């Protein structure tokens, strides 16, 4: 038992009991799909159809379907890749880093945030694979024995590091998420009435019974996985940034990239978590679990990371001037005042200015304002990657090869399509999986809910005598 300051806001409101938590979270898993969910899924499936059509065009006719040219060889594909990977980072941050910091507010949002991570990484992986042109040869990126004269992959290349980083990140996140899901699957299994549901959740729950020994190991595994996932998540965006930073393109060749990319990733990820959570809590009636306190905590992370990103933009400009390298200086002047000025200022407005509104407590605690600002941040972070990638490439050392980039309908289709893919996966998750981690919320209920259990309010040692007044246990020895 631990002391909780009386001024700390409750994390679970509405006087919920353990059984209420089970009921509230299992309800949407067990009930028939509601019309709002079905309508949302229909829209997401349209997006998925757009994705499949655009992928078909890309595979059938080749990369020429995209707007790339000889000068701008990377554009929307890599922009979208970095954008999606970045979004994924918030899930790991919430479930791993906040677990290490013992932040209890993570418990009701970590499940959905981790699901978001996994789906975002799936969306991200589409872009490099499609950009290969011949995705059926994607296994060539792995160091497999081959008949090309045992020619191995190039371990000096950041693009290969990416392969290892993203696949490790995806599989470790998936395992971490699944481990957390096992006790909740067991809860659903023990409530299930239908034969299919009972068998499906029994298989998914891996025979979990909630025995003390298993919980003890479960907690150890969670802690170690969190400890492993924390440096992993930092390494992933570090390596993604090295895709750019190890090249000699002006505007890319900077040492600030790894921390700047990681901060940006967390920034965009929290924005996406907020976008999703504000909708999810409304649709599934989870207002008592995902409270304004949660929203406010996430908004504070957004101010912090948004400000770091703002400082990074300024530092880049300063260093470009201070370095005395004219190509570097031109790259940055061109970013802000060249033909892509609108993208640069969209980025500056969305990422640096709008999140500063969260310094006001009323805005931080306003759901409407938070939702709008989170969308702005999502847009701003997309533009950040676009600015970094396209403005640096389109005018490099040789003015005769300067060019502009404009996306084709297929470029747009693949991007919009991955949003469809993402929401299809997220909606299926939200329907069939418990969106809130029931076991973890139950674990914090006694210390962090609105209603204090009578025996909790007495300061008593764990080894002391039985509580004096015990309303919850009618058969106690008094």
């Amino acid at each position, binding site marked *: 038992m631990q002391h909780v300051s009386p001024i700390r806001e409750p994390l679970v409101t509405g006087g919920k009991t353990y059984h209420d938590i089970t009921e509230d979270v299992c309800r949407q898993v067990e009930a028939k799909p509601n019309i709002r969910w079905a309508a949302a899924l229909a829209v997401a499936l349209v997006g998925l159809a757009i994705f499949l059509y655009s992928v078909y065009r890309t595979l059938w006719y080749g990369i020429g379907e995209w707007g790339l040219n000889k000068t701008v060889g990377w554009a929307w594909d890599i922009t979208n890749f970095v954008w999606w990977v970045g979004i994924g980072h918030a899930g790991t941050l919430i479930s791993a880093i906040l677990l290490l910091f013992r932040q209890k507010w993570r418990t009701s949002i970590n499940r959905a945030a981790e699901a978001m991570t996994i789906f975002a990484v799936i969306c991200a992986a589409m872009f490099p694979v499609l950009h290969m042109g011949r995705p059926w040869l994607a296994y060539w990126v792995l160091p497999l024995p081959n008949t090309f004269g045992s020619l191995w992959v190039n*371990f000096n290349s950041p693009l290969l590091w990416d392969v290892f980083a993203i696949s490790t990140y995806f599989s470790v996140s998936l395992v971490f998420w699944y481990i957390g899901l096992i006790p909740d699957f067991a809860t659903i299994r*023990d409530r299930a009435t239908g034969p299919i549901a009972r068998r499906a959740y029994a298989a998914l729950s891996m*025979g979990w019974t909630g025995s003390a020994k298993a919980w*003890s190991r479960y907690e150890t595994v969670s802690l170690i996985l969190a400890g492993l996932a924390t440096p992993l998540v930092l390494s992933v965006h570090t390596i993604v940034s090295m895709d750019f930073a190890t090249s000699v393109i002006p505007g890319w060749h900077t040492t600030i990239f790894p921390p700047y990319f990681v901060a940006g990733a967390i920034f965009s990820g929290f924005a996406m978590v907020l976008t999703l959570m504000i909708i999810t809590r409304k649709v599934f009636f989870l207002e008592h679990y995902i409270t304004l306190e949660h929203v406010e905590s996430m908004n504070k992370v957004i101010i912090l990371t948004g400000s770091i990103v703002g400082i990074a933009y300024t530092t880049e400009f300063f260093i470009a001037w201070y370095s005395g390298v004219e190509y570097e200086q031109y790259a940055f002047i061109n970013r802000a005042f060249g033909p892509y000025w609108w993208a640069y200022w969209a980025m500056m407005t969305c990422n640096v200015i709008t999140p500063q509104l969260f310094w006001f407590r009323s805005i931080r605690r306003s759901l409407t304002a938070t939702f709008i600002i989170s969308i702005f941040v999502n847009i701003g972070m997309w533009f950040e990657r676009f600015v970094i990638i396209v403005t640096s490439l389109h005018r490099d050392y040789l003015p005769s090869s300067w060019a502009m980039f404009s996306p084709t309908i297929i470029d747009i289709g693949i991007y919009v399509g991955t949003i469809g893919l993402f929401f299809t996966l997220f909606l299926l998750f939200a329907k069939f999986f418990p969106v809130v981690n029931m076991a973890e919320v139950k674990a914090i209920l006694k210390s962090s809910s609105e209603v204090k259990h009578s025996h909790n309010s007495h300061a008593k040692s764990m080894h002391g005598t039985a509580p004096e007044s015990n309303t919850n246990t009618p058969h106690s020895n008094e």
Partner: protein
Amino acid sequence: MAPHLSLTLIHLIAMNKKFVLGIYDDEDVLLEAIENVRAAGTKIYDVFSPYPVHGIDDVLGIKRSRLPIIAFFCGLFGTSFALWMQIWMLGFDWPMIIGGKPHIAIPAFIPVTFELTVLCAAFGMVITFFIVSKLKPSLKVNVFDKRATDDKFVMAIEVNEGVTDMNALNDLLRSNGAIEVNEKEVIK
């Protein structure tokens, strides 16, 4: 095989085990009950709870898990394997000059080494966790009390036929805050 013979075999191999289940609805009451029941000389078979109860390891005498050690050695394997793989492939099996760097460019090998360390540590530990906790996908699960995954804490005590004094056990559990005491037979 004749049906009566197989039935006899089942009885011979799989003795039904009988358990007394004390049902609790509060973690602090449960922790005290565990201490008192163990102090009374009763062996607790297992305790089932809807969430990890803090402090239960100490009162039940559960030793600290050694899974971190497994994770460490799996990670060590990952590190060594990754370094060996990269050094052998690019340094010995098919040396190539890439960007004017030495064949064995250790700094460039760090990212892949790190990722494989994390991958091996995580998967090695999780697979071990599944094996030692006997967690595997199965359609039928022996659950003592279904409320243990919802809102109740279940203390299971194995009954030795003829040895265990059922009334005394019932009293012991109830006097320590059990809201219910049930019996359960489990076909092993």
